[in-house]
């Protein structure tokens, strides 16, 4: 059984807009969100990078998450729920309450047993792990130190102790739900619970390729007839109070170093690029649907997915294999899966992190497989790196590029490092075929091929 798979809706929670259409308008306008990292983080470490891409303040209620649920969900799950809800509505479905006193929904007009969830995340609920770990580690030392400061220390010592106390502040409790908050499968489970989906529900935890792999496996499930609808995408939340997660990427030398001009610091494929822009996170969820199912309900169709492939470098945890042989093998495999030749590809949404290593290898492989003429851009040049959500954002950008015939610029490209056709202005070029590729820490490579949908 091989069915055609179309994208009928998408939802987004991001630093540059919520909802697929708002996000896309802002992409086309070249919008990005760059700010100095929270001052608190610099109390704990000497950091090399000082920039990140923060999410706007948001009330969990607007994500469809009530107070009772908020106490039991990591932000990564709330973002997934918010994006999925947007996707369901964007795809033209309506939601109804799952029961009298339930905060959950059922998606009207669908068979929940034939609807699956395929969600990527790099670090799952790491925020909840770190937040509760701080309480676990600091609660008793804090209490003892405070008692000493208040009852026995001299006035001079007390002043210094108070400074130390400020450094070891902790949250207000050890949350009894912590295990179910931090587990990496929590976002896909939260999505399945919120929308009463009883089909397959799986989490794809492959670092920066998570979103692409999740969409790819959702695509295969619909294509092979395991499900009629796949809610597929990625969710990531990279903030913690102490900048612990930021420090991990910073010390590895992966983040933007040249922070003098914040708006210009993030520059994938530029000669002066110095690393990737750390994102606070975000989520993108796509509704993948069997074409006949979509036509049967007159659904809006954004684009068609026609191929997926993945390979593994088998080389290094943190570096792409020089030469990019496994990336090339993956690209040739995804073209074969799509029954296409390299010359059929009209648009490449690159992984494009902005690290020296990634962009060099990626540009070389794009040149080798597709040549110098195909338009290329990096969505991370706008959004920064959302790790496990990035592939889902980029699959969405690829779909919208095909739908609207134009795409966003590769932001901040002053001096291209490579002789490729980077997108420098927004103009109609009416591509039929687009490819979105991701590479991950560990060595995972994955790519999707999408086709413009013509009735």
């Amino acid at each position, binding site marked *: 059984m091989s069915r055609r798979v179309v994208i009928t809706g998408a939802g987004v929670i991001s630093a540059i807009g919520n909802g697929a259409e708002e996000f896309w308008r802002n992409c086309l306008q070249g919008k990005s969100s760059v700010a100095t990292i929270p001052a608190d983080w610099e109390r704990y470490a000497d950091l090399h990078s000082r920039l990140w891409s923060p999410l706007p303040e948001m009330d969990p209620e607007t994500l469809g998450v009530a107070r*009772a649920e908020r106490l039991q969900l990591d932000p990564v799950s709330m973002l997934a729920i918010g994006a999925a809800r947007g996707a369901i509505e964007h795809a033209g479905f309506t939601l109804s309450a799952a029961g009298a006193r339930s905060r959950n929904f059922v998606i009207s007009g669908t068979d929940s047993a034939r609807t699956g969830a395929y969600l990527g995340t790099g670090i799952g609920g790491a925020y909840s792990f770190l937040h509760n770990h701080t309480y676990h580690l600091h609660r008793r030392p804090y209490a003892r130190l405070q008692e000493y400061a208040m009852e026995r220390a001299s006035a001079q010592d007390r002043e210094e102790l108070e400074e130390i106390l400020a450094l070891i502040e902790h949250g*207000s409790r050890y949350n009894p739900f912590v295990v179910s908050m931090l587990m990496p499968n929590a976002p896909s489970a939260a999505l399945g619970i919120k929308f009463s989906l009883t089909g397959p529900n799986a989490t794809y935890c492959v670092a920066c390729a998570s979103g692409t792999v999740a969409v790819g496996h959702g695509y295969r499930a619909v294509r092979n007839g395991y499900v009629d609808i796949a809610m597929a995408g990625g969710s990531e939340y990279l903030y913690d109070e102490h900048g612990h997660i930021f420090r991990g990427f910073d010390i590895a030398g992966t983040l933007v170093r040249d922070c003098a001009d914040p708006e210009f610091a993030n520059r994938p494929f530029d000669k002066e690029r110095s690393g990737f822009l750390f994102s606070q996170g975000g989520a993108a969820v796509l509704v993948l649907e069997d074409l006949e199912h979509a036509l049967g309900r007159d659904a809006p169709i954004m684009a068609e997915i026609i191929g997926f492939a993945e390979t593994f470098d088998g080389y290094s945890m943190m570096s792409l294999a020089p030469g990019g042989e496994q990336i090339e093998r993956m690209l040739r495999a995804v073209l074969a899966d799509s029954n296409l030749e390299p010359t059929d590809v009209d648009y490449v949404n690159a992984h494009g992190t902005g690290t020296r290593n990634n962009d060099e290898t990626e540009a070389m492989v794009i040149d080798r497989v597709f040549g110098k003429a195909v338009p290329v851009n990096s969505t991370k040049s706008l959004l920064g790196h959302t790790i496990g959500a990035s592939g889902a954002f980029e699959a969405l950008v690829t779909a919208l590029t095909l739908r609207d015939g134009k795409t966003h610029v590769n932001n901040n490209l002053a001096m291209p490092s490579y002789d490729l056709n980077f997108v420098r202005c927004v103009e109609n070029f009416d591509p039929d075929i687009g490819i979105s590729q991701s590479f991950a820490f560990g060595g995972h490579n994955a790519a999707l091929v999408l086709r413009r949908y013509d009735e």
Partner: protein
Amino acid sequence: MTAIYLQVLSEPRFLQPASSKSMNANVQQRVVKVIADILNRKESEIGLDASLRDDLQVSSLDQMTLYIALEDEFQRTMPPEEVTALTTVKAIIDFIDRKLQESSPP
């Protein structure tokens, strides 16, 4: 992120508690609101003598959620070994009332 008792000490309403009677009425209102919120019920459905388990069908997971919500609302810790013994809405109100009147936070 603020250590809980620093936060409590800095909140004026705990430094100058209202009179016992009016405080109790205020506590009652806030407890009922939190319970209604957590159980997704109307406040009018939360009777003072209602049994959590039999009348309100509070599961053990609901109970955990309820007590962490009450911790947030009143800025007091609610140790599980103490609160699991509370079986009615009124018992919760009285428990929190006592907590708030203790001279120093737990």
